[in-house]
């Protein structure tokens, strides 16, 4: 017993470190637990409130009201553009047109970017619209130029957005003229350039082709512009395709959140399919 007490008293700094590291380990392992997420969303809220105060000053200088009025107009126009673009693409199929109408984004919520981080430790946006404004996790965030990202955390008045230029972001995309499908993922080298993956050599792709979000996406509405193809390199089995993103992330001030989330049944089904294919295929497409 005396030896044990002596051991503890002589090594207590190590034991303390072990204890704290254990707590940190538990926090890492259970970071998706509801209560922890709740705490983090409160932290996000606090951080966003302060950030908003800071950004308000600069916004005031750049005619805040005028910008918000323009954003509202943009959101109305964007809804029309997406609808018309899709109708045009799908005009050959009445069935598809009808399904578009049911899938059509009833409304788009405008929001302002109150915090933007792009450094080696964080890469995210915080917008000033949260659950009170109807924002939910996994909604698509966009601008009239194209897709910005997806909502990953929501508090009462703010939401955290994972941008397209994040290493963990994936989205299903389709090219406009050849209808080639693939997964868009950002490789990290250049802010404006992402890569389109899983396009087999048998597919047709052209430089300058525009890419839109595909129907397969579990969070993004169909037909949101994503970017255009700037380079196509054939490799062993697939093409390596470089895509210039249509959104300038360095100049983002206002965004729109598409008020539609994927059908949970579809998500569940895709998740099941992904789990099954993971066991059989080594190279599987991630859920996007």
């Amino acid at each position: 017993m005396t030896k044990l007490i002596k051991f503890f008293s002589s090594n207590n700094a190590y034991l303390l470190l072990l204890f704290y590291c254990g707590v940190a380990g538990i926090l890492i392992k259970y970071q998706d637990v509801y209560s922890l997420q709740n705490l983090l969303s409160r932290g996000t809220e606090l951080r966003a409130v302060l950030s908003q105060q800071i950004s308000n000053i600069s916004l005031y200088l750049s005619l805040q009201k005028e910008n918000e009025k323009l954003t509202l107009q943009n959101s109305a126009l964007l809804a029309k553009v997406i609808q018309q673009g899709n109708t045009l693409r799908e005009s050959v199929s009445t069935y598809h047109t009808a399904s578009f109408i049911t899938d059509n984004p009833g409304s788009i919520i405008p929001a302002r970017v109150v915090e933007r981080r792009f450094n080696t430790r964080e890469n995210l946006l915080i917008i000033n619209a949260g659950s009170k404004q109807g924002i939910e996790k996994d909604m698509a965030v966009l601008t009239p130029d194209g897709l910005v990202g997806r909502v990953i955390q929501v508090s009462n008045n703010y939401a955290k957005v994972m941008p397209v230029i994040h290493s963990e972001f994936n989205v299903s995309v389709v090219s406009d003229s050849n209808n080639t499908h693939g997964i868009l993922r950002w490789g990290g080298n250049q802010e404006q350039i992402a890569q389109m993956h899983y396009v087999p050599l048998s597919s047709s792709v052209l430089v300058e082709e525009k890419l839109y979000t595909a129907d397969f996406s579990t969070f993004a509405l169909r037909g949101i512009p994503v970017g255009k193809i700037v380079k196509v390199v054939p490799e062993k089995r697939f093409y390596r395709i470089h895509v210039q993103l249509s959104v300038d992330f360095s100049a983002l001030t206002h965004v729109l959140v598409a008020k539609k989330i994927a059908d949970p049944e579809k998500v569940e089904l895709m998740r099941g399919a992904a789990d099954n294919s993971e066991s059989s295929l080594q190279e599987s497409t991630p859920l996007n």
Partner: protein
Amino acid sequence: MFRNTVTHIVLLIALCFVQQYVVSRLAIFGAFPDIVTIYIVFAAVRHGQKQGTTYGFIAGLATGTLGGNLGIETLSKTIEGFVAGYFDIPEDSHASALQKKRRYYKAAFLASITGRTVYALMVNVLSLPIPWHIIYSVGLATLFTFIAAVLAYQLFFKKILVNN
């Protein structure tokens, strides 16, 4: 003692806010100095390893809650406090001002590089190639933090540590 601890904790939390809202906006090539680390180093050098580790843990919780990476921040900051604690200057130390300064600089450098390495091993949000990730997330961030630590020593900590 109690008052001292409370003061350190309040200051640490205040610095976490400053770090989040001011310093992290000064990113150069994606890296920025970490003033929370500097304060943890100061506290560890002044009060010892156990206190340094505890302050690191508390600072990690605060930074993680504000930033979103609760577990990783807690782990890296705790380790920073522990590492810096190896260079503590006891109250009855007869070390010269130069020796104390060297101890503090060594603590700042090693704590920063250890903390950044732990963080970089777990997070690569910009999907940088590994060599660049190490250069930016560890090398450059450590360099900036060390420069800030030197400035902090000259402006604030010198009087306290030398007269300790």
